[in-house]
């Protein structure tokens, strides 16, 4: 293969395995998949996330019953073939409510974190790259917000906005924003100190282009990892808000709201609490496993 000229010289250790001289390499996405696949816990997390999202998306098809339909014959019924997860206090099918409740929980996780990233990333980018008094101002504000525990802030905001699932998502998203501002800023500052940023300046890149073309793509992995982990936290937050009556409103199901009711029937119908509790646990675990796996797989130090 070598022609003896530098043209065909073999790249060193970092070269992909068994590489033919391609026009375009599979790029870093393929190697990222390979690294993620090598971590069983991350694959498990991803599988559960995909399963939950699938169940939530096709809830109408998957769920055996209407989640709000009551059946007086199934009031607090123990799990059976007809109602595998049992029935609740007004005879609704717990399995169907869990399935439909996944929409509220996952939706709250994804929407609120999406909101937090959409707000936090540009603000953090501005603070990190502009520096000076802009940075100082933004940082003091986020410090103030971060001083209040996440859940307390979300509860306060949700109470202020009024009880509804949308407001709960908004409250959770706003509460999580400062985390992303901080993270983005720290990442921007770290990347901005790298020599390739100076190299970008040296060829005449204007500041906006350095921020968007050179810095942003390099901080996406860290943001992605944090987002995954924050989704887990947001799911708990949504459950907590719904448990307190500040989230999903009855009769629409949500795992947190289901727990609220179930706490009154712990002796007679423990399945009412066990299934939503397990679902929250599973979803949070899955996102945490996935987040940890992403962190490892996206770590640039794993590359060479």
């Amino acid at each position: 293969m070598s022609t003896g000229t530098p043209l065909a010289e073999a790249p060193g250790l970092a070269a992909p395995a068994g590489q033919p001289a391609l026009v375009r390499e599979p790029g870093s996405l393929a190697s990222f998949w390979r690294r993620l696949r090598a971590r069983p816990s991350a694959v498990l997390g991803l599988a559960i996330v995909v399963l939950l999202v699938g169940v939530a998306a096709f809830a109408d098809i998957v769920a055996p019953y209407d989640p709000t339909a009551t059946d007086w014959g199934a009031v607090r019924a123990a799990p059976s073939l007809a109602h595998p997860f049992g029935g609740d206090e007004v005879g609704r099918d717990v399995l169907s409510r869990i399935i439909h409740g996944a929409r509220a929980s996952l939706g709250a996780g994804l929407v609120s974190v999406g909101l937090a990233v959409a707000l936090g990333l540009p603000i953090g980018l501005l603070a990190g790259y502009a520096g000076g008094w802009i940075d100082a101002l933004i940082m003091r504000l986020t410090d103030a917000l971060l001083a209040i525990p996440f859940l307390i802030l979300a509860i306060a905001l949700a109470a202020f906005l009024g009880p509804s699932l949308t407001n709960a998502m908004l409250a959770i998203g706003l509460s999580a924003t400062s985390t992303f501002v901080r993270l983005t800023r720290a990442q921007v500052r770290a990347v901005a100190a790298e020599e390739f940023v100076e190299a970008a300046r040296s060829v005449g890149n204007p500041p906006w282009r350095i921020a968007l073309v050179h810095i942003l793509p390099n901080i996406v992995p860290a943001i992605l990892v944090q987002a995954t982990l924050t989704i887990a936290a947001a799911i708990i937050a949504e459950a907590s808000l719904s448990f307190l009556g500040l989230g999903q409103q009855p009769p629409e199901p949500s795992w947190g709201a289901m727990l609220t009711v179930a706490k009154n029937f712990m002796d007679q119908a423990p399945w009412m609490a066990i299934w939503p509790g397990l679902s929250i646990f599973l979803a949070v675990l899955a996102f945490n496993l996935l987040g940890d796996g992403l962190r490892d797989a996206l770590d640039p130090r794993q590359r060479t």
Partner: protein
Amino acid sequence: MSADMSTDIAEAPGAPLLDVRDLRVVFDAEGGAVHAVNGVSYTLREGETLGIVGESGSGKSVHVLAMLGLIPRPPGRIAGGQVLFEGEDLLALPERRLRRIRGGRIGFVFQDPMSSLNPGMTVAQQIVEPLRIHLGLSARAARARARELLDLVRIPNAAARLDQYPHEFSGGQRQRVMIAIGLACRPKLLIADEATTALDVTVQAEIVALVQELKRELGMAIIWITHDLGVVAGISDTVQVMYAGRILERGPVDAIFADPRNAYTLGLLRSLPDLGRGRAGRQRLHQIEGSPPDMRHPPPGDPFAPRNAYATPRCRAEMPPLAQAPGAAPGHLVAAWYDLPALIAGERPGAREGLRPC
């Protein structure tokens, strides 16, 4: 040869101190195993200074770290071989016993003195630690010895400086402290891994001179690992050239520089510009084409063959054994299927003289 004993200790009847036999080290990385060390064998005698030259990926540092249990495992693993140090196989020793040897009978000096010294501990604490662990000295005796050691490495006003922190020392002084720690337990072997690479050239000169003096005073054996041919020329008895996890050439220092038998050694020597030659009439620098091999897929045969203009078809198919070079000084070993002196002689008259740059 007897005229200059100091240059030829490899031939002197020192007892074998370290005997490395067919050492192999593999790193299990994603996308395939990296064959970092591929059958390295050599003997180091008591009091001998061995200069190991190679570039990154040559296995020069990894094989030494591996034999002392200092590579992370996993992903690293020792795939074979023996390392006999004073008759004991280091590779078979339990970690506890190995720890007693590291920093005890074998001392270390690493490349970056700042990251090897603990910034939160005074210099005294860091020198005293191995003395108490390995020699079981009392606190008072260890401190006295620490002071002697700082004197030994020529740090002025040692008593006052013992209680200072690493950041209060200059780069060169920090490397002196590292050498003091390396020598603390009177090792039989001192291993210096790129010990002067991070230092300025004037400081490097001072450290090299210091090591030379210490060697004369203490008589320990030294393994000096570097990529700098100039540094090994001055302090080595024996030079060993490594590439792609193998020894390509090994022999008495004068023989290696005056009569290189491997094309890689020759290429390295020729690619160095001459400090004493002006710009007028100068030639284009000799360059070795290509890059070092991907150690996940080392080329079959001689690893340098793909970059070697003198390579024969056999080089590309079969790894030559490391054996006595015909007609060379005794103990001058080379791994090559080609006869380099004959090839150079055929090139152009006077080419050999070019090897002696000064």
